[in-house]
C-alpha cells in the first residue's frame, strides 16, 4: 500500500474517532459514570450490529450459502485465492439477483461471507469473477466490514434521532394537547437536535470518505493477490455498465448492501457523497499496478 493512502486513511480514522468523541462527550457532562456508560453502550451496540450484519445482508440480498458440492467452480476459485493469500476460507453465498455485483459481510476472517450475484456470473468471464472475488477477499483480510460499520454507526444513530425529533416538531400523527406537548419537548431538545445534525453530517461524510479509501486498498490488495490488475479493471467496467443499465427498481433492491458492493451506482456531487471512488480513479490506479508488473514486480 502506498504511503499517501496510509496517511489519508489515518486522518479519516482520526475524524471518525472525533465523531465518536462528539457523540459521547455530552454524557460526560452528566458525570464520569454516565460518560463511561455511554462509551460502553456505543461500543456494545456497534459490535452487535456488526455481528448480526452478515445475516441481515444475506437476507436482504436473497442470497443463500453454497457448499463445494453446489458450486464446485466458484469454490475452486476461492480455494486458490485463499491458498495464495494464506487467509482462512470465507463462506460463499450466491444471490439470485440479476444485477452484476458482489459483496463481503461478516466482521473478520473467521466469520466472513463473500457473496456474488447470478448477474455477475452471467456477465463476467471466469478470470474477472476471480478478480472480483479477490477484491472481496481483500476486504475480509483488511476487516473492512467491521471498520466501516464502526465508522458509519454514529452517523446512523444521529439520523435515527433526527427523524424522531423532527417528528416531534411537526407533530405528525398527534392532535390537540399531545401535539402541543410534543412541540414543547421538541423545542426543549433543540440543542440535542442541533448536535445530532452536526454529528450526522460529519459522521456520514467521514464514513463515506473512509469507505472510499478502503475500496482503493481492496482494489490494490486484490489485484496483487491475483497478479492481474487488468482483470479487475475490466470486471469493474462491466459491473459499472451493468449497474448503469439496470432499472431503478433493481438498483433499489441492492441498496441495503450497496456500500459493501464491489461497485456502487452513481455517487453525487463532487463524489463526497459516494461510498466508492469513481471508476476512472480506480482504473487509473489499477493501470499503474499493471505498469509495475510489466516493468518487473
Amino acid at each position, binding site marked *: 500500500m502506498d504511503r499517501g493512502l496510509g496517511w489519508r486513511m489515518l486522518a479519516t480514522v482520526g475524524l471518525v474517532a472525533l465523531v465518536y468523541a462528539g457523540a459521547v462527550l455530552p454524557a460526560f457532562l452528566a458525570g464520569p459514570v454516565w460518560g463511561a456508560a455511554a462509551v460502553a453502550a456505543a461500543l456494545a451496540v456497534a459490535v452487535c450490529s456488526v455481528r448480526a450484519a452478515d445475516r441481515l445482508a444475506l437476507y436482504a440480498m436473497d442470497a443463500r450459502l453454497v457448499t463445494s458440492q453446489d458450486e464446485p467452480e466458484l469454490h475452486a476459485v476461492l480455494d*486458490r485465492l*485463499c491458498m*495464495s493469500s494464506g487467509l482462512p*476460507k470465507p463462506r460463499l453465498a450466491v444471490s439470485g439477483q440479476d444485477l452484476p455485483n458482489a459483496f463481503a459481510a461478516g466482521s473478520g476472517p473467521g466469520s466472513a461471507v463473500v457473496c456474488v450475484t447470478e448477474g455477475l456470473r452471467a456477465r463476467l468471464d*471466469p478470470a474477472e469473477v476471480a478478480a472480483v472475488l479477490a477484491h472481496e477477499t481483500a476486504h475480509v483480510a483488511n*476487516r473492512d466490514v*467491521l471498520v466501516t460499520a464502526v465508522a458509519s454507526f454514529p452517523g446512523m444513530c444521529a439520523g435515527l434521532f433526527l427523524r424522531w425529533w423532527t417528528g416531534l416538531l411537526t407533530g405528525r400523527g398527534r392532535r390537540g394537547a399531545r401535539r402541543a406537548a410534543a412541540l414543547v419537548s421538541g423545542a426543549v431538545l433543540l440543542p440535542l437536535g442541533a448536535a445530532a445534525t452536526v454529528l450526522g453530517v460529519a459522521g456520514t461524510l467521514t464514513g463515506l470518505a473512509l469507505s472510499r479509501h*478502503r475500496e482503493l486498498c481492496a482494489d490494490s490488495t486484490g489485484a496483487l493477490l491475483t*497478479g492481474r490488475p487488468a482483470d479487475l479493471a475490466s470486471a469493474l467496467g462491466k459491473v459499472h455498465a451493468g449497474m448503469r443499465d439496470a432499472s431503478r427498481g433493481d438498483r433499489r433492491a441492492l441498496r441495503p448492501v450497496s456500500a459493501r458492493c464491489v461497485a456502487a451506482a452513481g455517487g453525487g456531487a463532487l463524489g463526497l457523497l459516494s461510498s466508492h471512488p469513481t471508476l476512472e480513479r480506480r482504473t487509473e490506479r489499477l493501470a499503474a499496478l499493471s505498469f509495475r*508488473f510489466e516493468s518487473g514486480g
Partner: protein
Amino acid sequence: MGFLDTLLGRSKPAKPDLDQLFGLSSAAITLEAGTGFKPTGQGSVCFRAAEGGAFARLQQDVQELLDADEGPKVEISTDKYGYTWLLATHRPEELPDLVTDLHAVNSTLESGGFGPHLLCSLAGFRGPDGQRLALVYLYKRGTFYPFAPLPGEKRDNALELQVRGAVGADLPFEDDLGRWFPVWGAPGL
C-alpha cells in the same frame, strides 16, 4: 494482525519458510514404512502467472534452469482457473532431486518478487493398490497436508488422516483441516 494494521486496512504476510520442503525426502521414507505409499518421482508447483513481461521472462528462466540437467523436460500447463502448473519428473528413487527442483522453482519466483503468486507445491505418491496421494506444501503457510482423490471428485478422508498420523511428526502439518484445499486434476498427482 495488529490494531494499527486493522485501522489502516493492510494485512501482514506470514514469513514463508521454503526449507521445509527438504523435509519431504525423510518424510517419504517414513510414509513408505508406515503406509506402503511410494513416491512416483513426479511433482509440481502451482502459481498464478502475473501479467506483464517481467513474469514471463522469469518463468522462462525457471524452465531453462530445470531443463539444464539430463532427463525428462519440465512440462508447463494451465488449468481452467488460469493457474500455471510446472511439472517436474524424475525417477521414483530420486526424490531428493525432485525436491531440489521444487525448491528451485519456489525460491526463484520468490526472489523475483512473485512469492505472493505461489500457491502450492506437491509431490505424488502411489499406494500398494494404486491409490493416488499427494503431499501438498502451502507456500503461504509453510505447512503440508495430504490430498487423496478418489474417482468422481471425492476425497479419501480416512487415508488423508492416516497419512497425517504416519508423517505428521516429520513435517510441519497444517492444523486447520479447512485449509486442506482440494487440488483436483493437479499434474504430478
